[in-house]
């Protein structure tokens, strides 16, 4: 058993995230690990395969910064606001570099993580029927039920090289606790070869909390303290979603110059 090491965010990213890795930053609208994404931008990781059900602003930023060679996803937008313009620019114009995509439905992506977390090569679901999605991805196929003869969809397991999630808190031993909308974070961490959890704070004792899940220290490689590390998304019990920032991103991201200025400013700030 190797237990999580508590280290700084720059150290953790330097140690765990390598050029060319398949990296999953998960958090379903809640607890999106923005601070970690920004540190990956600062450390100028390249050729990443970015995996995420809902590429949000954080992936728009990483794509715009040139970190990504490929995006694996199921819904790419700025929720309630509009499009991800950096993602669109990369797809349409290859700026700052071309972006390959692998596209699924939410049910498919969720089950790909479940298979990955379960040590299985694939998952079975009733999905993709009548849609054009399977024409464009090789990670959807069919299997036949050995009992009923029925044909069902199969999706290939996702096992990222590294998964990064944000949580409310960890204890000094590196056990992590998160609550509220917990999305697919447990599966994404358990499916990964390596994992990093950023947390709002480190506490002496993880008080049992309704709806909380706990990730024991021995399934995590590193824990890094990153207060407000999920902003502008939210951390239930700590701070609200900054909806104004989501709306403001629309204008910044529409324009390469404004985005580039944003990027330079980000790189100038320490983690």
């Amino acid at each position: 058993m190797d237990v999580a090491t508590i280290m700084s965010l720059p150290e953790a990213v330097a140690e765990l995230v390598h050029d060319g890795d398949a990296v999953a930053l998960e958090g379903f609208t809640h607890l999106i690990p923005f601070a970690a994404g920004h540190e990956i931008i600062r450390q100028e990781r390249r050729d990443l395969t970015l995996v995420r059900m809902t590429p949000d602003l954080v992936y728009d930023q990483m794509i715009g910064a040139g970190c990504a060679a490929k995006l694996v996803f199921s819904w790419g937008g700025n929720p309630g606001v509009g499009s991800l313009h950096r993602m669109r620019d990369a797809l349409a114009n290859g700026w700052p570099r071309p972006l390959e995509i692998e596209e699924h439905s939410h049910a498919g992506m969720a089950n790909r993580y479940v298979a990955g977390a379960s040590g299985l090569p694939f998952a079975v679901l009733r999905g993709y029927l009548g849609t054009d999605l399977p024409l464009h991805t090789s990670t959807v196929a069919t299997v036949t039920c050995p009992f009923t003869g029925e044909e069902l969809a199969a999706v290939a397991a996702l096992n990222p090289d590294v998964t990064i999630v944000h949580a409310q808190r960890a204890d000094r031993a590196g056990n992590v606790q998160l609550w509220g909308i917990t999305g697919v974070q447990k599966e994404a961490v358990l499916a990964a070869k390596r994992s990093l959890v950023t947390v709002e704070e480190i506490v002496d004792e993880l008080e049992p909390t309704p709806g909380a899940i706990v990730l024991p220290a021995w399934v995590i490689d590193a824990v890094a303290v990153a207060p407000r590390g999920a902003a502008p998304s939210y951390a239930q019990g700590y701070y609200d979603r900054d909806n104004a920032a989501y709306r403001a991103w629309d204008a910044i991201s529409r324009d390469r110059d404004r985005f580039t200025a944003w990027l330079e400013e980000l790189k100038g700030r320490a983690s």
Partner: protein
Amino acid sequence: MTVAAARTLRDGQVCFVGIGLPSRAANLARRLHAPELVLIYESGTIGSRPEELPLSIGDGILAESARTVVSVPEIFNYWLQPGRIDVGFLSGAQLDRFGNINTTVIGEYDEPTVRLPGAGGAPEIAAHCREVVIVMRHARRAFVEGVDFVTTMGHGSGPGDRCALGLRGAGPTTVITDLGLLEPDPETAELVLTAVHEGVTVEQVRAETGWELVIADDLAVTAPPSEEELSTLRSMRTVGENGP
């Protein structure tokens, strides 16, 4: 349109809610005639009763006001997939005469004119809910003869298609727009105009529809929004301002 959409929901139904117009309409229904409507969001919240409208499908207000919150794999596998949900409430960028929805690309997949957000939960919501209600603004570029990409299957290429694929839900049963209501003809599965909102003409609807729209023999006019409906709608605040 939001009022008309809200009216399609009956009290006590279990509704899987997409973000945007569907969420607004479902929350309006819950405040009006359907206080026991059960709202399920794909973020894993079951039985949410938000006091303000969420901006995304995973706002804190959905979790805090929920009966229970489950993981995203669980919401799709245990709650949606087995067919326990009455109504799936969706929107889209393009809709064709058979109720198929496109939220992926306008144009070719590999070189699209417009890249849209993608599928999200919609393909499986439309597959597994007992029925699907679609809310969309009526515009010629959105109501098309055939969608550029089938993100979410409605009635496929006509009657029998859902059955042949083993899809157990009834598929789209109502499309609500800012001009009126469309419902699939039981014989052809093609969307037919069954009602217009007060003051809307059939010509207006035809002009905004990209296929040769069939008009129901007994074309109805929807009842105008009541005082209560309008005041409730106006009183609904979105978390932040630029609501869904």
